[in-house]
């Protein structure tokens, strides 16, 4: 009985060993290709690093533009969140009853958190303080109108726009200041830089595909005898393609790291004018690129390297099959 148990327990172990051998070989081949791809950077420094540097420069420019675009968006966002408020200027000839009714209706509006009435006298005093004039007097009557200062419940742009439209439709309201125009201009600038950045990224990414592809093509050409032999002795397409894919991905990865360093460095060099720009809108911005942006650059570069290797590798294998 004991013998039988031992015999039975041996069978699955043998099967496992049999099944795992190709898997182990597959894993070993991946490991070997990975190591080879890194050794290549050491053994072929000129070819490999020239490609890496071109890739880095090609990716750094659009990545920098996209990063700046993200910061411009942030400036607008920070301003809006800091100033979820607007000022409603009413007609100077408004009757107090109408003003009171307007104030009450705004207070009941669920988009408005708080309404503060600023009288013409208080407005004049605020202006004097702002202009550092101590006391400001006017020759005639105070020309300033009553102003309703609204604190909004949210800085959502759509909510703000709908409220502006509603308030503007009231007869007694002459003017609203909500920063909408400049935030719109800022948004347009941000959209322009963002789209420009991605167009550049697409075009230069295509160029990067060719640069990496051409380097790999030359290396495949040098190894053509070996690849033909591997195909002849039963190497599968994946087996032949695998080292090329690792070469492409590692080239892309290192190119991405260099591009990320370049972007970080370039961003620091434009940080001072960027901060001055942010301060002109009453906000601040960090003087560095987000870590997630840097990771994205590396990921995009790795993907480009891998894709380039896929395209050139498959093309080469098709050619090999015709030999």
């Amino acid at each position, binding site marked *: 009985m004991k013998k039988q148990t031992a015999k039975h327990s041996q069978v699955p172990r043998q099967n496992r060993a049999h099944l795992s*051998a190709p898997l182990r*070989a597959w894993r*070993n081949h991946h490991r070997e290709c990975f190591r080879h791809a890194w050794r290549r950077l050491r053994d072929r420094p000129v070819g490999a690093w020239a490609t890496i540097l071109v890739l880095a420069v090609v990716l750094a420019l659009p990545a920098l533009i996209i990063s700046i675009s993200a910061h411009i968006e942030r400036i607008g966002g920070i301003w809006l969140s800091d100033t979820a408020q607007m000022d409603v200027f009413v007609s100077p000839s408004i009757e107090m009853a109408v003003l009171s009714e307007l104030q009450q209706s705004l207070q009941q509006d669920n988009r408005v958190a708080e309404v503060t009435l600023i009288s013409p006298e208080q407005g004049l005093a605020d202006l004097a303080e702002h202009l550092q004039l101590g006391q400001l007097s006017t020759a005639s009557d105070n020309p300033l109108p009553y102003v309703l200062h609204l604190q909004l419940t949210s800085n959502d742009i759509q909510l703000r726009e709908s409220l502006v439209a509603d308030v503007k439709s009231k007869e007694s309201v002459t003017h609203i200041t909500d920063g909408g125009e400049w935030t719109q201009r800022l948004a347009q600038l941000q959209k322009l830089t963002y789209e420009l950045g991605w167009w550049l990224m697409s075009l230069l990414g295509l160029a990067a595909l060719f640069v990496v592809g051409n380097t790999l093509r030359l290396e495949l050409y040098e190894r053509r005898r070996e690849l033909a*032999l*591997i195909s*002849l002795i*039963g*190497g*599968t397409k994946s087996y032949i393609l695998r080292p090329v894919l690792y070469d492409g991905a590692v080239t892309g990865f290192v190119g991405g790291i260099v591009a990320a360093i370049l972007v970080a460095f370039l961003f620091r060099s434009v940080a001072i004018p960027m901060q001055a720009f942010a301060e002109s809108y009453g906000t601040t911005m960090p003087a560095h690129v987000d870590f997630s942006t840097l990771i994205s650059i590396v990921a995009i570069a790795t993907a480009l390297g891998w894709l380039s290797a896929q395209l050139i590798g498959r093309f080469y294998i098709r050619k090999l099959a015709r030999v």
Partner: protein
Amino acid sequence: MIEFDQVSRRYASGHFGLQNVSFNIPKGQLFFLTGHSGAGKSTLLRLIPALDFPTSGRVRVGGHDLGRLKAYQLPKLRRQIGVVFQDHHLLTDRSVFDNVALPLLVSGHTGSQVRKRVEAALDKVGLINRQRANINELSGGEQQRVNIARALGNRPSIILADEPTGNLDPDLSKEIFRHFFEFQAVGVTVLIASHDLDLIDQFSAPRIELAKGRLVS
């Protein structure tokens, strides 16, 4: 094991590499393939591992009709065939060990299996002590033996040899032929293409003779 049925291979120029060739090599047999240069020996040998395909007729290897094999099935077929190339096809920037190990690595053997099989194959051809040597350091005869060891590593069921004794001296040529007979003795099907009739006459084995792409005998 290897069956040709009315096989023709016509090139784009209109020239026939092979014309209506039919033969059958049973499992575990050694055959010589003879004929002058340009008779179609290399064309015939290329059809067996599906490196080329006939324009008409049918080639069957190990029961598989090669015309019906899918592209993904070809690597598996080729791993069952050991090819001894006329011009060696050795990787000159690698060692003897690495050259012999290549087909084993390609077919998914682990490190310890590769080592065992490479050593066994090199031992068989008498090069066990030269496994660390670079290919460029070897003589022509030694390179040909590495070529044979590489074909053996995967323990193939078929060995194809294209002019395996090309530029070797008669004694070494005989020794290499003896190796092939040893493989046949353990059940491997062997097809040796050679135009050296003097050498072939010294061994007893059936022949397939080609002339201008046609089967003569």
